[in-house]
């Protein structure tokens, strides 16, 4: 039987392109000290560290986690790095959960940082994740990989560029309320549609920025949590699924074999929902923090999370269902479209979900939110994680 686990401390830096004022470990240290202060804990009270770090080529130093041992206070403690590409932060949070649910530890620090501003070549780096004999040679990157998802969703369900643009408009509007967000500028539907084509159907304002920044989350067992605070955020359910490496194998229409759909996330969410006792997510989830660095991905995600029927994500977006004033607000933080520090973007979703259910999300707070879901995706859309976080145990 798994022990109960709570999130008891959160630290985020602001997200921005350049952080030339700090080295990578110094950036990590900023988030750790903020999280410790938030939890009213000292570094000595942390028993183990999970380091959230996606491909190190983005920061240009291999095995960068080594540099950060001191910045996370790991000397003399167990330390592990987690990497599932874009899903890294979601997987790291789950690894943190396992540390405590398993009863091996009472406190764990989950932390990481991204410093993409040190290179102008993010997409060249992401091209390196593919097989050099096949996909790498035909100029694949994270953007056109998402375009393939978008065109299949458009073809299958009639999803439109306008509906995708509405996702971007919503996220940009929400980000105005988030002091940590990288892009804090409202955009109109016309702005998105008129922005330059990057990889059709994705245009510049359908795409995330290259962000630098750090995020830290401290988790604790129920016993330790009760001594620390009155209003923790409880991790109620987790799920993770992986699909095949080959995108070309997912050009079929059946379950798990359509690159246009996110049946993998649906399966991860189903597991998390079952653990959390959620049978009707559209009613029982109050707010969602979805990892969608491209507008089209959020449409596939809301469907996979059971917020609307499959194929209806675009239509529900049009109706304002996911707006701050809608039935189920999505990404009050502005989401990955407005801040994408890749190594921790999934962890930021967990942190933002925890802030929401504890009523600490300030200007971006969804009124009365008690239960949230946080997701992450990585690789060529094949790693998926979901975590349900609630004010109530």
């Amino acid at each position, binding site marked *: 039987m798994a022990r109960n686990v709570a999130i008891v401390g959160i630290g985020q830096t602001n997200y921005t392109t350049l952080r030339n004022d700090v080295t990578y470990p110094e950036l990590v240290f900023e988030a750790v000290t903020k999280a410790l202060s938030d939890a009213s804990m000292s570094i000595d009270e942390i028993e183990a560290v999970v380091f959230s770090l996606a491909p190190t080529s983005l920061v240009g130093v291999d095995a960068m986690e080594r540099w950060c041992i001191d910045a996370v206070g790991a000397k003399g403690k167990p330390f592990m790095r987690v990497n599932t590409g874009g899903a890294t932060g979601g997987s790291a949070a789950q690894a943190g959960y396992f540390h405590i649910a398993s009863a091996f530890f009472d406190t764990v620090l989950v932390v990481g940082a991204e410093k993409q501003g040190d290179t102008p070549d993010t997409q*060249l780096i992401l091209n390196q994740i593919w097989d050099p004999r096949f996909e790498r040679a035909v100029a694949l990157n994270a953007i056109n990989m998402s375009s393939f998802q978008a*065109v299949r969703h458009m073809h299958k369900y009639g999803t439109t560029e306008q509906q995708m643009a509405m996702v971007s408009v919503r996220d940009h509007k929400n980000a105005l309320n988030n002091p940590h967000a990288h892009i804090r500028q409202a955009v109109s539907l016309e702005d998105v549609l008129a922005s330059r084509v990057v990889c059709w159907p994705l245009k510049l304002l359908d795409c995330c920025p290259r962000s630098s920044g750090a995020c830290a989350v401290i988790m604790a067992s129920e016993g330790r949590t009760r001594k620390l605070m009155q209003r923790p955020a409880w991790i109620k359910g987790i799920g993770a699924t992986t699909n095949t490496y080959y995108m070309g194998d997912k050009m079929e229409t059946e379950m798990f074999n359509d*690159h246009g759909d996110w049946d993998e996330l649906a399966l991860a969410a189903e597991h998390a929902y079952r653990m959390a006792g959620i049978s009707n997510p559209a009613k029982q989830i109050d707010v969602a923090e979805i990892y969608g660095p491209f507008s089209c991905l959020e449409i596939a995600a809301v469907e996979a999370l059971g917020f609307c029927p499959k194929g209806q994500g675009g239509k529900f977006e049009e109706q304002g269902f996911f707006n701050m004033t809608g039935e189920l607000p999505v990404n009050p933080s502005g989401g990955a479209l407005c801040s994408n520090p890749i190594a921790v973007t999934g962890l930021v979703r967990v942190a933002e979900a925890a802030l929401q259910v504890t009523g600490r999300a300030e200007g971006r707070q969804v009124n009365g939110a008690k239960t949230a879901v946080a997701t992450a995706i990585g690789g060529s859309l094949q790693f998926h994680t979901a975590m349900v976080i609630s004010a109530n145990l």
Partner: protein
Amino acid sequence: MMKEKRELVSVPGKWDISFNYAAGKTVSHFLAQIRDNGRILGMKCAKCHRVMVPPRSFCERCFVPAEDWVELGDEGVVEAFTIVHDVFEGSPPPPYAIAYVKLDGADTALANFVDGLDLSDISEATQRLKIGARVKVEFASRREGRITDFKYRIIG
């Protein structure tokens, strides 16, 4: 005390590392057939009969070795595509189109560049380059045993 504005220093760096990515027996045969005979081969799983390209020495669905080569058609159908209009370092100068195509006889789709389309007007280009469109494989006259030895061309 007066706060002094201090300079921020950056140290330049570049990763320049050589690899010779071994293609292995299976992919080597696939690439040599493209180079020498202008043929695209798929690998058929003896258990589920799925024809896989890129070829691989095992079927991950049945979790058994695979070793039955089959020749694929030189035409196929577009399953996904994009038209790239932005500059990416290390990638060709834009615009260019990439498509996943399920070649006749294959159960999986293979990514490659699409040639012979005017990509300057996207709404016109997407009248022809769309999911379901038929394409023909066009081999380069000088081939090196690379996936880029051929491109797709929309038929009709």
